[in-house]
């Protein structure tokens, strides 16, 4: 039988890199085809080519036995739909408007809202959603919004459904539900392409697995009983790259950072943090998990001083710092690795000198009596480049041309070299390749052994489980549970906490 989609020799170049290098990809009818690989392996690019968002520089796309070239509208007409990693939705508009956007049923030149509402209602019912078609998207939770994305694509009669990292924002239970839907679609003959880097999920659902590495297809496996390590090795390309783990053996000292009864409300009076208390001890990594948007960013902002809490106190080494400015907190030994290095961690237009001294610029050795000491600044940069193995920098050039890993090394160098008492690390390895992930982990673990108290906020459950000494899960702004002995719980248990299904009494 003719495959639904056949991509032959696809090459896509961007100014700095070749994102896809003569990639072949075939999708059969009614197949769930997983596309796996590390960040930057070219999975998303390949799918955007298929979805008509990027025109390939070389190569052919065959859809339903015919060679095609098209844009997004053309892809939709061919029945190819894509659910992006960050939802392409307009929160201010209603469910029905979001779904019919760009494909409105018309009558006498006006949008036929009645007909649209009816069809959307049918789809909502089919997916077991009780929301009104006129409810605004902003009133839905993440799992519901994902379903809307899928409905949006099906509304157009898509026979090929591309899902880009659909489970990244879901709890394990929501993921199970999603997989149920995908199997149903498959039974109806829809083909699904599923981008992920979570191997366990992939092996559970996929009929066929294509592994990408550095813009090329590295390997292909048939689903069912595939060996996880074989896929992992194809992904990484080396024989034995293991992610570093916390040996959980070091001495843990007294509490250094302590937050008591934190409250925080947004502009609508909705609580974002509810009476949250936590403490991080010297030489300890406290993991903070939970589905994104359950108060993690408010917690970080309050601890760092970017946001004023409505109530509660923050103490650092016994001193109340609740009223201190960001600079005062940093001077007292607070280090911060922000979640988004592009917007908060670095000034991309600045050079490495400027990025390394920010926050310490007003004192020795970098300045004296208000004048910058350029020699000292340059020496500092040299030292940091050496000890953090920062590559690709040139003096006076903006850091925006560096790779993600090297950018993160600059952030690490700035925050760690000051030898902080407390380090707040938010998603420190997001978007990095394995080598860089291990580099970051190595430095975090080294600081831990050096006695720094580390608060690690991450959306990656694997990372939390392997690095933390202790783990708390946030749900709707309060602590849903604390896990002191990470060896005894399963990911499913944690998933229940993340989804707010169960709560664990705080121990002690």
């Amino acid at each position: 039988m003719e495959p639904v989609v056949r991509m032959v020799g696809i090459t896509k170049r961007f100014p700095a890199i070749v994102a896809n290098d003569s990639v072949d990809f075939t999708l059969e009818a009614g197949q769930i085809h997983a596309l796996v690989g590390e960040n930057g392996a070219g999975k998303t690019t390949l799918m955007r080519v298929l979805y008509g968002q990027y025109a390939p520089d070389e190569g052919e796309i065959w859809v339903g036995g015919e060679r095609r070239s098209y844009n997004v509208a053309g892809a939709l007409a061919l029945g190819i739909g894509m659910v992006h990693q960050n939802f392409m939705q307009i929160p201010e508009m209603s469910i029905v408007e979001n779904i019919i956007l760009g494909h409105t049923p018309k009558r006498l030149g006006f949008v036929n809202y009645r007909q649209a509402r009816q069809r959307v209602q049918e789809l909502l019912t089919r997916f077991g959603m009780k929301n009104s078609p006129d409810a605004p998207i902003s009133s839905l939770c993440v799992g519901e919004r994902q379903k809307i994305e899928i409905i949006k694509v099906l509304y157009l009669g898509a026979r090929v459904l591309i899902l880009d990292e659909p489970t990244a924002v879901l709890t394990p239970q929501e993921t199970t539900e999603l997989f149920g839907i995908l199997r149903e679609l498959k039974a109806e003959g829809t083909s699904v392409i599923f981008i992920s880097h979570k191997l366990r999920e992939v092996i559970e659902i996929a009929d066929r697995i294509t592994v990408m590495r550095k813009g090329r297809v590295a390997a292909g496996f048939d689903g069912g009983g595939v060996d996880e390590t074989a896929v992992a090795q194809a992904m990484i390309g080396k024989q034995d790259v293991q992610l570093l783990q916390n040996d959980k053996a070091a001495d843990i000292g007294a509490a250094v950072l302590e937050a008591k009864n934190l409250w925080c409300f947004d502009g609508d009076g909705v609580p974002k943090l509810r009476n949250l208390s936590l403490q991080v001890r010297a030489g300890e990594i406290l993991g903070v998990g939970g589905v994104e948007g359950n108060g993690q960013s408010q917690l970080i902002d309050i601890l760092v001083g970017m946001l004023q809490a409505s109530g509660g106190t923050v103490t650092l080494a016994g001193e109340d710092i609740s009223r201190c400015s960001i600079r005062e907190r940093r001077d007292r030994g607070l280090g911060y690795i922000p979640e988004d290095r592009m917007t908060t961690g670095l000034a991309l237009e600045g050079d490495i000198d400027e990025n390394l001294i920010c926050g310490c610029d007003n004192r020795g050795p970098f300045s004296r009596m208000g004048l910058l000491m350029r020699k000292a600044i340059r020496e500092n940069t040299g030292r940091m480049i050496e000890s953090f193995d920062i590559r690709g920098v040139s003096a006076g050039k903006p850091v925006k041309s560096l790779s993600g890993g090297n950018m993160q090394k600059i952030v690490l160098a700035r925050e760690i070299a000051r030898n902080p008492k407390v380090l707040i690390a938010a998603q420190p390895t997001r978007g990095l390749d394995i080598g860089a992930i291990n580099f970051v982990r190595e430095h975090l673990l080294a600081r831990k052994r050096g006695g720094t108290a580390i608060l690690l906020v991450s959306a990656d459950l694997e990372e939390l489980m392997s690095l933390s000494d202790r783990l708390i899960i946030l749900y709707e702004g309060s602590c849903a549970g604390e896990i002191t002995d990470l060896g005894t719980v399963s990911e499913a248990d944690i998933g229940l906490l993340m989804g707010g299904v169960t709560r664990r009494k705080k121990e002690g």
Partner: protein
Amino acid sequence: MLDFLNLTVRLAAPVLLVALGGLFSLRVNIFNIALEGFMLFGCFASVVGAYLTGSVLGGILFAAAVSLLMTMVYALFVFELDVDPVICAIAVITIAGGLTRYLLIPIFHTSGRYILPPELALPTVNLPWLEAIPVLGPILNNHSILVYLALVLPFLLHIFLYKTDLGLSMRSVGLNAEAAASAGISVKKVRYFALAMNGILCGLAGAQLALSLNLFNVGMTNGRGFTALAALTLTGFEPILTLLACLLFGASDALVLMLSGEGYPVQILSMLPYVLALVVAIVPPIVRRLAKNARRRRAERTLMAPGRECPAQE
């Protein structure tokens, strides 16, 4: 009083037309500060057009065409050359000011101001059936066709935005261009369309302003483009609310005109529309901020009360 309201409607029309033009830009997320400049081009072009063709209609069409052309140049610079839209807009305003001032001399051989023959003034329409309606009649009768257009447009625009496909596309582009593009909407085309409408409406606004007085005066738009922007930020780009806000500005203009005849200092009176615009721009954000703080405090009081250790988590 009825005279005053009639005057209000007439003076509100140019601001309203510019504001509706600006609404198109703001709806596709282009903060078009150059409204003032496009309107000034419209004023000048309407007078030139009327003078060259010898007809009012010629003036109106020429105004719309020139303003459209200018917005398209602006759109080209902003969309194709990645120019900073704010600076480009201010450049447009500067060029509009300079070019109209300069061209007045070679075209009309006069400096600063040109008065058209009175027969080229925008005629007013007298509808006997309208006159017969008490109160509303005298207010709404005897206006130019552009005033009537300005009064009807907000309602048409409302229908356009909320009932048509293109309106839906426009709203989506303004709220989230990336999402719109991924739904297969051509964001650039929608934006060009919106700016084109913006241009035409600014041209009509200029024509109403200049031809109702049958003259062109250097810098005669006098900040109306910015007043319109202030009105739009107040109304959240809703056409019908914008109509109301612009009537308010029309009333303040009318008040200035009526009172300045009675010996009050003109300069202080003339500040009224600008002060009103300032108030309109400043007060709503303050109120919103206060309301937010109140909501937050209320939530704090109810939820953070002592004794409630772990609320709302059953």
